[in-house]
């Protein structure tokens, strides 16, 4: 028997938690439902097209800043191309049962970083949306307790998305 124990012993605490968190009971439907519910509640659009559209219309190639997620673009890509690819990747991460605790946490941190960039308001708004969705997924899938401020982010995300929904009258 090869020594798996020494390999596992060499993992960081975060890596161990990331892999163990796979064991939470969750069907494909459960995983997708969290994000779809949020999208539906906020945008009446479970396909995620609204989010992808939001990203694709940003002037900043904001998707390029998200290092932990496995998507790649060619060096000649336009900001819109980079963001469109990022939008698809973000949605895959948010709805996939394979998404780990660490990936969702990375996405939440990424959203927070973007929300505080000294750039245009639309891009910062996108950061808030991504953070809110990632936090929501962390709460429902992994039982992650949220700080009061995080719960506020989720509620605010839904409110802001609702207000941005075409035809929304408040």
């Amino acid at each position: 028997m090869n020594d798996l124990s020494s390999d596992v012993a060499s993992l960081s605490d975060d890596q161990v938690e990331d892999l163990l968190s796979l064991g939470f009971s969750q069907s494909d439907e459960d995983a997708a439902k969290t994000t779809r519910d949020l999208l539906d509640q906020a945008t009446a659009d479970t396909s995620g097209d609204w989010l992808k559209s939001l990203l694709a219309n940003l002037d900043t190639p904001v998707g390029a800043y998200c290092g932990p997620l496995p998507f790649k673009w060619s060096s000649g890509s336009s900001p819109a191309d980079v963001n469109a690819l990022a939008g698809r990747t973000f949605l895959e991460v948010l709805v996939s049962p394979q998404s780990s605790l660490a990936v969702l946490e990375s996405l939440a941190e990424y959203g927070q970083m973007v929300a505080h960039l000294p750039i245009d308001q639309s891009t910062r708004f996108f950061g808030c949306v991504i953070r809110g969705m990632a936090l929501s997924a962390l709460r429902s899938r992994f039982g992650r307790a949220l700080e009061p401020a995080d719960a506020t982010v989720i509620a605010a995300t839904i409110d802001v998305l609702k207000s941005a929904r075409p035809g929304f009258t408040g």
Partner: protein
Amino acid sequence: MHELSSEARGNLVWTLFSRYWKPLYAYYRSKGKQPHDAEDLVQDLLNHLAANSEGLASCQPTGRFRNWLLTCAANFLVSDVRKQRARKRSPRGGTLSIDTLRSISGIPFEPAEQIDPDRAFRDAWRRTILANAIAVVREESRQSSNSTDFELFFDYYIRQDDPHPTWEELASRYQLESWKVAARRADRIKTRLAQAIRDELRASVSSDEEIDDELRDLLQ
């Protein structure tokens, strides 16, 4: 009371040692025991539990076995039982030694200095669960002649190579058409690992409903 057969008792001894010796070892090391003393304590405690295996095997545990075992470990340090050197009273079915287990399952996790003993126990426990689950999945992959999926998973998520390979490099290493194919094949193993982790956790809780709670507790 129902008495265990010699074979059943031997199996129980084996199960106790192979599953739980590392968390107990980490606990005693964090209590300040030297490696040899920690090994003796683990050996004595587990052989004592096995020697009293009728009660252990017939009880219907409530709550988590992990917490119960941790309490046993703490009590054993100060109990008269230890002073009687339980290993001298060999249970039928035989005793096991740490050396035997070390030869098949490697060196245990050595806790960092000054780590809290309870935390050391929990950390070693969750690494044991993870290692056991990965071993199950690896064996299944071998038997199904699908070891490339496991190797992709292992190289990307477990092996601590420096520099860490990218999916593109792994696709090239295993002669796959693209990085996406490599990532997707490793994901199959993650899916199987998820179930294997739950199977491992099921062994230490009293109902399936407690598995998520146990996992959540381990991840705190």
